[in-house]
Every structure is written in structure tokens, then in C-alpha cells.
């Protein structure tokens, strides 16, 4: 599904190398987690995959089912099936949440040469999905993320994910800013979307999210590289001992 090879990335504006050779391979239907201390390059990896400006790839490759992600515009990557759940979902005053969702769904369909979804079908599906995530009608009508609480914003991300039905989902610190109940709700939303054709890359500081979204593989990232890969037990090790031990091992 997602294949990242020797990825090197620096900031465009300054001479600062953030990713220093990331290798990662995620198979179809798998859930991988990346953990790591602040500044290790986790969020940068998610931005580079989704095509945000401000980063320069100096070496390496990233492909989604063989398609070269790094050559594509952000919207093309989305149409190809990549989805990034933002750590800080952006507020867009003046654009209704429904309009936004429908525009996005139809834009992706159009890019793939599919027919637009009818207004009736769209409404029906949004309502059903929103209900599962406890998103009320008012939230759907309001401008995108404007005045949403932290939990509402994250649930709105999952709603978008559900509606867009991507094959590769990157969750960037989806647990940040969530209380226990909200985390549970969001995790249930994510788990409901798990299937053999859809893969997840879950980026997080903490093990607690991984109690809810159980990963197949856990990677530890530090200083722009993946320094250790293991099973779910690796996350528990981090939870118990912190990153210091792991960092020490490789130093």
C-alpha cells in the first residue's frame, strides 16, 4: 500500500534537515503506529506525504500502490486515496461543513472519472455517518470547524475520512486535545473504518490511543529516522520507560 524509501526532507526556507532517511512499508489492511519524542519528525512525515508546502524532498521516494506521491499535487494524492487527519484541523469561516464535505467528495469522484453523488444520497450518507460519530445537525451546518471544541474537530476529521473512504489514512496526533470519552468515540470511528483494503498510519506521542486503535506494527522515530520497529508491546515499553532508554540503545 504505502511504501516510503530512504526519505530525506529539509525545510524549504532554512537549511534544516528534518527527515534523514525514513523507510516504511505498510501493507493493505494494516495499522502501523509511529511514536516518538517531540521534534523527531513525525508530523513532518505526515505533511510531506500529503503535499504541504514548505518542505523539500532531497532524497528518497514515497509511493501509494506504486503511484509516486511526491510528484502529485495535494488534491491528486487525496483522489489517489490518501487522507491526512490533521493534528490541528483548520477553521474555515464562511464555508459550511456540508458544502465542504460535498465539494470534497465530488471533487475526488470527478478526479477519478466517477459520477457526482446525488444530493439525496449524499445527505443520507452524511447523516448516517454523523450519527455514528455523535455529530449533530447543527455541526454539519456550521462553517468548517469554526467554534468546534477540540473533540468536535477531531470527530469532524473522522467524518470526512468516512465520507471520502480513502485507502491510506494518516492520523497525525489525533489524540491531542481529547478527553478520555472523546478519544474513545474517535477511536471507535476509526475502528469502524478498518478493513482489509484500508491501511492506517497512526502518529502519536502516547500509548493510550493505541489501547483503542490496536496497531499491527509500532515504529519509534527519533531525529528524523525510524530507530526501532516492533509489535504492540513496543508501545507499552515506551509507556513504561519513556523514550530515553530506546534513544540510549541506538546512540
Amino acid at each position: 500500500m504505502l511504501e516510503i524509501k530512504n526519505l530525506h526532507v529539509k525545510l524549504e526556507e532554512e537549511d534544516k534537515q528534518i527527515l534523514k532517511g525514513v523507510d516504511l512499508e505498510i501493507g493493505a489492511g494494516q495499522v502501523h503506529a509511529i511514536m516518538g519524542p517531540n521534534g523527531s519528525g513525525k508530523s513532518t512525515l505526515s505533511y510531506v506525504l500529503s503535499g504541504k508546502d514548505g518542505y523539500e524532498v532531497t532524497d528518497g521516494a514515497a509511493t501509494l500502490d506504486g503511484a509516486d506521491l511526491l510528484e502529485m499535487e495535494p488534491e491528486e494524492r487525496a483522489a489517489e486515496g490518501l487522507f491526512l487527519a490533521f493534528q490541528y484541523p483548520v477553521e474555515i469561516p464562511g464555508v459550511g461543513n456540508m458544502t465542504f464535505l460535498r465539494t470534497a467528495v465530488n471533487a475526488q469522484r470527478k478526479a477519478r472519472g466517477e459520477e457526482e453523488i446525488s444530493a439525496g444520497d449524499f445527505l443520507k450518507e452524511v447523516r448516517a455517518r454523523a450519527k455514528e460519530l455523535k455529530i449533530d445537525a447543527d455541526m454539519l451546518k456550521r462553517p468548517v470547524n469554526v467554534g468546534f471544541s477540540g473533540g468536535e474537530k477531531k470527530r469532524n476529521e473522522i467524518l470526512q475520512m468516512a465520507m471520502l473512504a480513502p485507502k491510506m489514512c494518516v492520523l497525525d496526533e489525533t489524540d491531542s486535545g481529547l478527553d478520555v470519552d472523546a478519544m474513545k468515540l474517535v477511536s471507535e470511528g476509526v475502528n469502524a473504518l478498518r478493513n482489509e483494503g484500508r491501511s492506517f498510519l497512526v502518529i502519536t506521542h502516547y500509548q493510550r490511543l493505541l489501547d483503542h486503535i490496536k496497531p499491527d506494527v509500532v515504529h519509534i522515530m527519533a531525529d528524523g529516522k525510524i530507530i526501532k520497529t516492533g509489535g504492540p508491546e513496543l508501545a507499552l515499553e515506551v509507556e513504561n520507560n519513556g523514550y530515553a532508554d530506546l534513544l540510549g540503545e541506538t546512540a
Partner: protein
Amino acid sequence: MALPQLKADATTARLDGLSLPDGAAWATEARQAALARVTSAGLPHRRDEYWKYTDPASLVQPDAPKASLFHNDEGPLFANRDRVQIVFVDGVFSAEKSSDLAAEGLEIGLLADALATDIHWAKDLYGVLETNGQTPVERPLAALNTAFASAGAVIRVTGKATKPVNLIYLHENTTSDAMIHNVVKVEAGAEMTLLETGPAAARFSKCLEVDVAEGGTFHHVRAQGRDHERRAVTHCFARIAKEATFKSFTLTANGVLTRNECIIDIIGDDAVAHVAGACVGDGSDFHHDDTVFITHDAVNCESRQVFKKVLRNGATGVFQGKILVKEGAQKTDGYQISQSLLLDEDSQFLAKPELEIYADDVACSHGSTSGAIDEDALFYLRSRGVPHKQATDLLTLAFLAEALEEIEDEDLAEDLRARLDNWLARRG
């Protein structure tokens, strides 16, 4: 004080080719008084403080600069709305193109007829609100209009009008120089919606005087034509009585020069006055100026100014907005926002927001911003699959939304939104 020679010469040159139209004694008196205001103030010049950001030369020069005719492939605006249509072609009333001028709750007439009638209600308003609006800032182009305009509509609103009145200004002559003066009197508790659409002329001078009596409501929605080369100076003078409501919205797309002045006097307690505008301009020959002056002279009144401009390819937008709160106008709630979305580095927005307050128990705020498309929002939309151009358009419409929300009638707002969609869609 004598006028500077340049200004005196320009004023004389402009007045040379004009003669006061005939009319009833009161009308002639009003016109002569207006002419006197023009000659004493002189027509505006770039060096006048009030015209610092907009060069009035082409509005003042004797002949109208040529403006090519523009074929509007979108068809007439508000075509699906049931409305009284009063059509002027290059500033001349067309009975043939207009609909029946009778409607429930409205008494509609033509300015020329009103000004020829010895006893007419318009006497108390024609040139009167314009005169009130000459202090503290002189508006000689409005006085010029009062002196020489012979076309326009006079509307008395006696009840709740069941359909809007649409003044339609067609442009069919490349050198037309049109003056139109409309007078509206909203009686106590009465209500109407006035629509104004179309480019009107190569050069257009328009005055609207509106008197809203106690508890009356006046809605105004205007769309200035898409003709690229047209020029317009418009004045709206409104007087708002106790518990009355005045709401005006203007959409402007294109035009080498547009100056819209709105002067509102709130004279009765608990009244509301909103004035808003959205403008979209493309190209270095686009220049659009909103100049607003709202005076609060009563207690517990609310005023809002909401102006949004989208500018690209070297377009220029101007906003001069003032809230004057007079002594004793306590509990005033005044709000003013002017914002521009600059789609490139060549475009510019010049803003002069002003507050002048002589009462101590008021809440007034004003803000003005200029900015580019929000990169984070753009990336967010694109990351969801919305292509760059579509995402930019969506954000542009979102930027204008706050101004469009000032329109109460959702159908009318929808018609204008569709025009904006088309405007954006035409641009790559």
C-alpha cells in the same frame, strides 16, 4: 473663500454644457439652490482630502469618457423574482420596457412628473436630504445631480409592499452621460425592498434620497453592471426615524471607476441602519470606492458597515467609512468592518476607517484588514481533494459571505451568489 483657479475652471467647464430643466416653482428653487452648492464648493479634485484615494477627474470632465457596450450573457438579474420593473436606458425612462408601475402598498411615479407638479410630497425630500448630507463633508457631485437630473423614480411607501421595485439601468450608448435621482418616502410602519441593477451609462451619476419614517423598513439591494469601462458616482442619503430600519447592500463587479457614497442620519431612537458591500475587481483599470458616513443623533441605535473587496491583477479598492456619534446619542452600537482579499501583490486596498464619538455610553468598533488567501485553509481543502482553483474560489466566496449575509431576503442573496460564482468561474 474663492475656489482655487483649477477647481473653478473645471467646475465652469462642466456646468457650461448643462442647463437646469424646467419644472414647478419649488423644483426650480431646489435646483437653483443645488447649483449654488456646486458653484460654492466647486467640483471635487484629486487634491481634496475626501478624494485622496480616488481621482474624480473623469467624473468631473465635461464629456463622459467612452465605454464600450458589454454583452451580458448571464441574462437579467432577479429575472425569476416577481417585481415592479422601472427601466431607464442610458438614463432615459423607457415606458415600453417598464412594467405597470402600480403595486400594493406603493405609489410610484416618475421624477420628471413629480418635479413638474406644484404640490407634491417629494418637495420635502428632493435635494433636502442631499443638502443635509453636505455637512460636515461637501458632496458637490450629489448637488450637481440634484440640479440637473430629470429622470428617476419617486416612490411613496404607504403599507407593506408585496413585491420589490427594481430600477433597471440599461446601457446602450457608448458615450452616454446619465443622471438619475430617485426619492423614496417610507411612511410610518410601511416596508419596501428596492432593487437597482445594471450599468446605466458610460458615465452614471445617481442620487437616492430615502426617508424612513417611524417604524418603517427599507431594504435596498443593488448590483452594479459588469461593463468593464463604465464609470459611476452614486450617493445614497438616508434619514432614519424612530424604530425604523434601513438595510442596503451593493454588489459591484468590474467597472473602471465606481464611487459609492452612503450618508445616513439616524435621527430617531431605537433605529437600525446597515450598509454593506461586496466587490470583485480584476485588472489595473478597476477602481472601486465605498465612502460611508453614518451619523448617530438618537439613543439606542445600531449601525453596521460591512465591506468586502476581492482584488486581483492590480485592482484598487478604497474604503472611507465613518461613524459619528453625536452628544447625547447614548447606547449607540456602531460596528464597522472593511476587508480586502488581495489575490496578488499588484492589487491594493486603501482604507480609512474613522470613529468620532461625543457620547460616553456607547459601544463602537471598527476594523480593517488586507490579506491573501489563507494558505492553511487552502491546503486543508486541497488535502481533501478539492483542486487548487476550486479551493481558492470557495475561500473567496467565503470571504465575501459576511457581506452577503447582510441581505435579509435569501432568494435575492442566492441570485447574487450565483453571479459571484460565475464571475469566479470565468477566471482561470
